[in-house]
């Protein structure tokens, strides 16, 4: 610890705590030559310092009985993150995993680590917890050294019990040393919040070769309560005296409520209308009264300006709209020159639709706005940012808002949960009562922020030897985030816009992530304007693996086209051109596990009613590398595609929990398969047509794969990278490439519905 920090650690100390906790050491403080570490140990007290990133107590606590709490500023949405964080903390502290409880997403006791975000739960989110746990262990060993009167070097720890080498009589537990007290010890904070938040500590973290808990498959804690229903989720939060609310949003795109006929709900005595500027809702003591009132309320909506394109002309619109921004993320060599001298060129375009989060249940939230503060129960992925958003919406200090995260009905990005929280806060303010907001199905499907539609143009130059000499890939699309995913700015919320705030807007997209070493290569994106300026049902934001499916559906299908164009096996072509050894290993592992056969020039048997094919695709995502082999069946008569078998090879560095990782990959794969085959937001010029599961179909059990084989490639010496999203982006092209193998025809538009299949096979 630096002197400055040491002073800080001691200056906040309450004298009684100081003596009470470490009175026996006071004399030695005056002495010189005391090991530096002792100062930290001496600060131990019974008062918990205020929540701050540079306080060790804000990250980890030893409870009176020796159990451990870890305070995590992200949340687990059912993909084992809670377990993995617990494993990492248990590992560094040398306690049994069962002793650790991970406390998540409560703004009263955890720092803003950005919430669930970009599959960074371990990659970024575990870092402060790992360091804090190691630092806690270091201090505990200092305390033990004093208590047992031996040097720290002679101590070892087993499940929270410190013992002395060569003297079995001397032991002391964490509970005896520290239980129920607080470290009062500073750590070095990088002054950042959200994903980049990091802390530095004196302690050294363990080397991966010493891991005993990390790397084990440990079952999740949240499975049993979900299966037995012994705990609720966000939909089950009930506060005494609360009103039930339904927010009413226009079925007519871009219009506002001109007249509201209050008499139209007079037959529901318990219900009333809340109408403030363009924000319209009904509230009632009984939920059914709110539902009925929302159904029966007569509203005259302003005429639609028909702001959406014809559904069938969506991609023409994308091609023809003005460009708001062009970004050339990667450009090397002389791309234009390569095309001038090419022996031949290959080019293609790929189309992706708007897609909806369509969470399993529409979002709900409960807010209670009181004169002395606000309490918010929210299912958002990012409760700390939701707290900031509510504070900004209501114009109250952020520290007067307490956000409590409660697991939501699915999430996978910025779904409708963010708006539900803001709606509840506004309604509680306007009614003076605690308010529970829940959407109806159409709120979750028609009104969630969408994943953007896109057109992708790819072309390649090939020389006389069949070598790729030029590669040019451009995505042209709606922005991936016309509203930000983090919810801290009310300009990104529907109620904010309805109350008159100007939309903030965001202009960004992305490029393929791979390591293809083509000499002359350009990767670019172009973003076009939003369709509706404010409070739009077609506003875009992040949906699991934002723009990863769109981009890689195109880029990895195009790579496949190049393999065929150059007479190369699709696996071999990728391994030859992907320059990173880890990428090559992942491709090989997937091909080996799937029993990939090189087809050569032997023609496929395409005579039967059921066509079979296999295809491969691969991608990187923020350090993680995934390859997928899809084996599909195409019913020539009905046009139905069945993704029968998938083989995934997955490299995300050090694996913390293999079993949890497998389930995460499997879920990501099936969800991406649903988006590949079924999902498309339908609309007309004046309205969104996809409002429920009939108008926005997703994969059913009938369409589930028969086999998902997962090959986990562990790199203990490489830092863990994300696992929640990378698989998603590889699935669409793997299926499309298998479709080509099966049929000899390319289907370059998603979703690959029976209608489109029949059209290309005709």
């Amino acid at each position: 610890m630096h002197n400055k920090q040491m002073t800080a650690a001691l200056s906040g100390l309450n004298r009684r705590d100081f003596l009470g906790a470490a009175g026996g050491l006071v004399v030695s403080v005056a002495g010189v030559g005391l090991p530096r570490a002792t100062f930290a140990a001496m600060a131990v007290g019974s008062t918990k310092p205020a929540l701050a990133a540079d306080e060790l107590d804000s990250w980890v606590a030893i409870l009176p009985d020796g159990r451990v709490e870890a305070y995590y500023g992200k949340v687990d949405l059912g993909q084992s993150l809670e377990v993995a964080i617990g494993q990492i903390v248990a590992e560094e502290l040398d306690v049994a995993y069962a002793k650790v409880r991970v406390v998540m997403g409560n703004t009263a006791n955890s720092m803003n680590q950005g919430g669930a975000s970009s599959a960074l739960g371990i990659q970024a989110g575990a870092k402060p917890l790992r360091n804090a746990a190691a630092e806690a262990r270091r201090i505990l060993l200092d305390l033990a050294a004093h208590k047992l009167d031996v040097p720290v070097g002679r101590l070892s720890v087993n499940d929270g019990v410190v013992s002395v080498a060569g003297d079995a009589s001397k032991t002391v537990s964490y509970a005896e040393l520290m239980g129920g007290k607080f470290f009062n010890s500073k750590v070095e904070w990088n002054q950042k919040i959200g994903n980049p938040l990091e802390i530095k500590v004196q302690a050294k973290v363990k080397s991966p070769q010493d891991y005993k808990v990390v790397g084990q498959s440990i079952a999740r804690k949240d499975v049993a309560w979900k299966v037995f229903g012994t705990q609720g989720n966000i939909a089950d939060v009930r506060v005494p005296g609360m009103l039930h609310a339904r927010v009413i949003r226009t079925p007519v795109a871009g219009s506002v409520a001109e007249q509201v006929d209050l008499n139209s709900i007079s037959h529901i005595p318990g219900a009333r209308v809340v109408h403030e500027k363009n924000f319209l809702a009904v509230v009632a003591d009984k939920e059914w009264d709110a539902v009925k009132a929302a159904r029966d309320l007569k509203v005259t909506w302003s005429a639609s300006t028909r702001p959406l394109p014809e559904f069938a002309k969506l991609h023409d619109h994308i091609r023809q709209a003005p460009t708001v921004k062009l970004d050339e993320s990667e450009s090397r060599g002389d791309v234009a020159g390569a095309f001038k001298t090419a022996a031949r060129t290959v080019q293609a375009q790929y189309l992706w639709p708007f897609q909806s989060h369509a969470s399993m249940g529409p979002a709900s939230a409960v807010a209670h706005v009181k004169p002395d503060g606000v309490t918010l129960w929210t299912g958002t992925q990012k409760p700390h940012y939701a707290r900031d958003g509510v504070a900004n919406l209501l114009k109250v200090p952020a520290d007067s808002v307490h956000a409590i995260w409660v697991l939501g009905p699915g999430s996978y990005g910025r779904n409708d949960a963010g708006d539900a929280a803001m709606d509840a806060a506004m309604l509680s303010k306007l009614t003076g009562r605690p308010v529970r907001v829940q959407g109806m199905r159409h709120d979750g499907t028609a009104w969630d922020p969408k994943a953007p539609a896109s057109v992708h143009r790819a072309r390649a130059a090939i020389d006389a030897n069949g070598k790729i000499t030029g590669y040019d890939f451009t995505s042209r699309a709606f922005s991936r985030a016309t509203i930000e995913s983090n919810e801290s700015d009310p300009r990104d919320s529907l109620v904010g816009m309805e109350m008159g705030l100007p939309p903030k807007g965001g202009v960004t997209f992305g490029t393929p992530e791979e390591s293809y070493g083509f000499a002359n290569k350009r990767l670019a994106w172009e973003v076009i304007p939003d369709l509706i300026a404010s409070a739009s049902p077609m506003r875009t934001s992040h949906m699991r693996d934002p723009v990863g499916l769109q981009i890689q559906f195109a880029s990895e299908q195009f790579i496949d086209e190049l393999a065929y164009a150059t007479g190369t096996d699709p696996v071999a072509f990728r391994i030859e051109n992907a320059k990173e050894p880890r990428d090559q290993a992942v491709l090989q592992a997937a091909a080996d596990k799937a029993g990939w056969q090189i087809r050569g020039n032997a023609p496929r048997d395409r005579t039967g009613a059921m066509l079979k094919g296999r295809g491969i695709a691969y991608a990187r995502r923020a350090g993680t590398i995934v390859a997928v082999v899809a084996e599909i069946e195409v019913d020539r008569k009905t046009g139905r595609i069945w993704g029968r078998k998938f083989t995934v090879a997955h490299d995300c560095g050090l694996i913390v929990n293999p079993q949890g990782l497998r389930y995460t990959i499997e879920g990501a794969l099936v969800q991406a398969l649903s988006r590949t085959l079924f999902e498309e937001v339908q609309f007309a010029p004046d309205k969104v047509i996809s409002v429920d599961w009939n108008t926005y179909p997703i994969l059913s059990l009938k369409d589930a794969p028969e086999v998902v084989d997962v090959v986990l490639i562990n790199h203990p010496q490489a830092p863990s990278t994300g696992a929640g999203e990378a698989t998603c982006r590889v699935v669409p092209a793997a299926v499309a490439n298998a479709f080509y193998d099966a049929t000899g025809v390319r289907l370059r538009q998603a979703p690959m519905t029976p209608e489109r299949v029949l059209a290309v096979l005709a």
Partner: protein
Amino acid sequence: MSVTPFTVDGKKVKIDSDPQMPLLYALRDDLKMNNPKFGCGLAQCGACTVHLDGQAVRSCVLPVSAVKGKKVTTLAGLGTPEKPHPIQVAFVEEQVPQCGHCINGWIMTSAAYLKQNPQASDAQIREALQGLKCRCGTHVSILRAIKRAQTQMA
């Protein structure tokens, strides 16, 4: 308004409500039960499924007046951690739910289905349960769990 007496998980209850109010709101709002979930309100997803005299029904579209004098069983009545239904055991062993919002529907529907069709084939199960939704993509582990339960119930 009218009073509807019925039984929920073995307990007698009376709901004083609009007779057209769906059973789901009686269970969730009047009785403060958590397990039947609101997913769509349109009988399109199954999250609200309960057993009505042993049959799986979608409580989000069933008027409360229709259950007068009948026996309603919810997930909590199907099994408990101490006395679990084999389907629940299998769903825990296969670590099925991710967000978990759909899981009530899968367990209640498959429990009723397997009771009638204990020997159902993979294809029959896929067909019979295709009206349920899961957004997290846990379908493959759902199939594993149902097959595991079948062997335990055999």
